[in-house]
């Protein structure tokens, strides 16, 4: 009995410790990041410290490098031939741009949701079970449980629970995108990167995804690229404004939208360009 209590207490203690350090912990620390696509200088001297368990929005006009930046955070940008980077991005005390850093490990801890929903051409169940399976989880019971919790976590369980074995392509666009979020949750990452996740969705589905992002920040650090400034204002804690491959301003979302320090930020958010 006493042992049990003791254990419980230590668990609570751990929780407490984690909680207290939450507010200031940095998940991604980017220092002097430069990136080139062959000869195009796409990111210029980026310095950003992104907090854990917050929603960080990245806004800016098309071609400003915001998608490139978010893809650098899980090194998906390397799929483009001829990409070069300098500088560092520290994630959990390690520079992820270091060649010795195993990219698969990084992507296991950092999930990504893409601009266009990209479920696998498999059943809904297999879509969610895919991640756990490639990481060695084979037990059917465990997988069943993961599938259910992940789908519940993305608030899509009630809509799909009766057709888990049907092809994911039978779902609507908004459902597909939430399925992709559930797919991310299935491997319990620390960070979820969202690259314009609602740009192809109707307002109702967009609202659902926004609510979901709010909900998920309790457990995950979320970095979201968006074209939609209202969206950034609604859901994010911090906002970075990118322009021509540079960070113009990075601050609390409130400050950015009510009292920006830079004229260009003000021009952009008030719709004068972009």
């Amino acid at each position, binding site marked *: 009995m006493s042992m049990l209590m003791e254990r419980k207490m230590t668990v609570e203690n751990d929780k407490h410790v984690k909680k207290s350090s939450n507010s200031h912990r940095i998940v991604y620390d980017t220092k002097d990041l430069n990136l080139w696509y062959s000869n195009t200088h796409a990111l210029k001297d980026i310095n950003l410290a992104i907090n854990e368990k917050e929603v960080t929005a990245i806004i800016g006009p098309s071609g400003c490098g915001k998608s490139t930046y978010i893809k650098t955070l899980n090194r998906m940008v390397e799929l483009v031939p001829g990409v070069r980077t300098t500088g560092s991005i520290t994630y959990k005390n390690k520079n992820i741009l270091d060649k010795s850093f195993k990219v698969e490990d*990084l992507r296991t801890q950092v999930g990504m949701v893409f601009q266009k929903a990209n479920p696998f051409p498999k059943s809904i169940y297999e879509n969610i079970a895919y991640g756990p399976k490639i990481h060695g989880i084979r037990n059917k019971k465990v997988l069943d449980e993961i599938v259910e919790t992940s789908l519940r976590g993305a608030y899509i369980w009630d809509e799909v629970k009766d057709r888990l074995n049907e092809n994911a392509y039978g779902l609507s666009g908004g459902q597909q995108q939430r399925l992709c979020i559930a797919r991310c949750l299935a491997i319990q990452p620390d960070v979820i990167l969202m690259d314009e996740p609602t740009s192809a969705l109707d307002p109702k589905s967009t609202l659902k995804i926004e609510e979901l992002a709010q909900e998920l920040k309790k457990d995950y650090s979320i970095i979201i690229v968006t074209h939609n400034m209202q969206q950034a204002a609604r859901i994010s804690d911090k906002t970075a404004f990118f322009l021509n491959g540079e960070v113009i301003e990075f601050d609390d979302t409130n400050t950015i939208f009510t009292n920006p320090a830079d004229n260009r930020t003000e021009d952009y958010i008030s719709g004068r360009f972009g």
Partner: protein
Amino acid sequence: MAKNSDSKTNNAVNVSEMIVQNKKKKSMSNLMEKLVPSFLFLLASITVLTTIGILYTLLLEAIQFFKAVPIWEFFTTTELKPLSQDPQFGVLPLISGTLISTVIAMIVAGPIGLMSAIYLSEYASDKVRKVFKPLLEILAGIPTIVYGFFAFTFVTPLIRTFWPELGATNILSPGLVMGVMIIPMIASLSEDAMNSVPNSIREGSLAMGATRLETTFKVVIPAAFSGIIASFVLGISRAIGETMIVTIASGSSKNFTFDITQSMQTMTAYIVEVSGGEAPAGSTIYYSLYAVALTLFVFTLIMNLLARYVSRKFREEY
């Protein structure tokens, strides 16, 4: 300039007026609109009519054959001696020859073709692909008689240096060479199938921490499965129907055996041999050609139906 001042807009030409003018000349093109589809239908019918015609001839002559040799005897007798005093017409030796050469060919072409496709589609850079694919297509363009000659004068002697039991004519080396011939077909068609899998799906898998290999085998290949199966079936059909290589390199012994070191005859090679002159029209041996051809036709038909069924059943739509 004059036109410009006529029209109220700034347009250099008055398009709507020109369209009205042209409409008056439309009667000729209306006729074409009606005639062309009929003409196209006629051309498209040629293939269908030819198939029906061939099938009709085959059936008609094969029935003549089965009047002389009962159908069950044809499919159960293991002896094929069309020219002997007491002729025997069992198709089993030909079926065994055909199946064995096809199996050997597919053992070579299946894995190598698929692996080449995986390399080209998932790993090769654009530069490598641009060099490789045309090269593959050159391999596909070599006349089969060259392959046959190659099997007989090069591959067989080569294998015999370390496997002396192999006959001078045998089913092994034409099978192997047929496999090499089919590789480009399987590689090229499978590569097309895998290439048409959208990149976003690959990215989805890689972003979950899957390796390239896992992505290839667990996402890309299942998504391209129906195309890959189709390429295999086309390969098998090609092997079943292949004639020249086996005729040259496997000889004409009508052995019912599964010993790959021996000479065997395939259905196609039998047709070549018999239609080569020894068969007087109207004789049983002449009609046997049609019976064998019909069997061959049924084989490839079954393959095609099977392919349709399999690729539909395992299709992952995207």
